[in-house]
């Protein structure tokens, strides 16, 4: 961390001149249930092998996001402004996982009548502008994203996240809180029931805009030069418009993760 009095121009040039990379393999267990109705969580789902990558070069970066998927690209971006205590990034990021009914069935023993007949939904990724504010051991990020789902409508998403690091001896303990606002086009696309998707188990439904509030706690501890221990849990709450969808499983979502990480 640079000193407060360091010249800002020097700090910026140092940031943009280095190539940094990090590759991580995480082995562990995770409880990450589906948000969609009646999708059972099988025993093999608890085992988790994840690959994370973090690349940085002259303001350009690429990194995976742990919760989105095991190996898919998380976000790629460029630092438009990189100051000591704040920054502005242009990013392309993966926000929402789409679904195909036949893919959901792969790990299921039985059909899922609540989801049968639904139209496939594409992944929700898109461009965003992200503002980050850094202070001591805290960071606040605010991002406005426009998802590339289709060209018929505009799909806007607003996400903010606050993280506070508590270092205790060799432990790093993170407390986090996030709020994501989904425009009605996004909620409708993923959670509404169109007239041609009506079935005995689901009526026509319009989700409308909604939000997701999340609190997280996680901890890391170094085991050796290349290994660390990681654990954490997350609790999310979905607003009524989202949670009331006939294909949405739960208004409150709890996720756990524990494992060891090998860092290259």
């Amino acid at each position, binding site marked *: *961390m640079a000193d407060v009095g360091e010249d800002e121009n020097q700090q910026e040039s*140092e*940031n*943009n001149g*280095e190539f*940094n990379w*990090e590759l991580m393999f995480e082995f562990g267990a995770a409880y990450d249930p589906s948000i969609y109705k009646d999708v059972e969580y099988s025993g093999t789902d608890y085992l988790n092998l994840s690959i994370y990558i*973090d690349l*940085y070069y002259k303001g350009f*970066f690429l*990194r995976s*996001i*742990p*919760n989105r998927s095991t190996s898919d690209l998380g976000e790629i971006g460029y*630092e438009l402004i*990189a100051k000591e205590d704040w*920054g502005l990034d242009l990013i392309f990021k993966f926000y929402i996982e789409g679904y195909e009914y036949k893919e959901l069935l792969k790990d299921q023993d039985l059909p899922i009548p609540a989801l049968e007949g639904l139209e496939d939904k594409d992944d929700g990724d898109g461009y965003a502008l992200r503002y*980050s504010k*850094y202070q001591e051991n805290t*960071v606040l990020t605010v991002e406005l994203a426009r998802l590339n789902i289709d060209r018929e409508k505009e799909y806007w998403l607003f996400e903010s*996240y606050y*993280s506070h*690091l508590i*270092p205790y*001896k*060799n432990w*790093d303990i*993170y407390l*986090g809180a*996030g709020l994501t606002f989904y425009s009605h086009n996004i909620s409708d696309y993923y959670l509404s029931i169109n007239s041609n998707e009506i079935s005995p188990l689901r009526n026509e439904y319009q989700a409308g805009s909604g939000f997701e509030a*999340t609190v*997280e706690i*996680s901890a*890391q*501890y*170094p*085991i*050796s*030069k*290349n*290994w*660390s221990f*990681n654990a*954490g849990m*997350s609790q999310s709450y979905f607003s009524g418009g989202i949670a009331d969808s006939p294909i949405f499983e739960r208004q409150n979502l709890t*996720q756990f*993760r524990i494992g060891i990480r090998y*860092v290259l």
Partner: protein
Amino acid sequence: MFCRVVTAILFAYSGVSQIAYSQINVEQLQLVVKPTKCITLRQGRPCFAQIEIRWQSVIKDDFCLYHYKNEGVQQLIHCWENSQGERFIFNFESSEKITFELINQQNKNIRLFTAVEVSWVHKGTPQKRRWRLF
């Protein structure tokens, strides 16, 4: 002949430390720390560990133990008088290597070094980030 006898007698009754001074050398000292490495999560982050320091000498003498960081100021940890060895627990808290130095107080040229290195899991990067677990 008489002068030689007197000299020999005076030398024989000189202080023990003088005999020790003339006999001790670096090879007769031992300084061991355990562990020799402290692992921290991120480069630049302080690393915490309890370091066991053991030193031993073949003869009793006065020794002092110091520590310092790279190019840093030497800081006294503890001194022992008329001792042949000790075990000491040091609370290590540093983001860089700390060198320990045992110095004989009768002859400051008799000194022994050892160090505890700091290594890390995540190397420092210019990009600030906070990983979300979920």
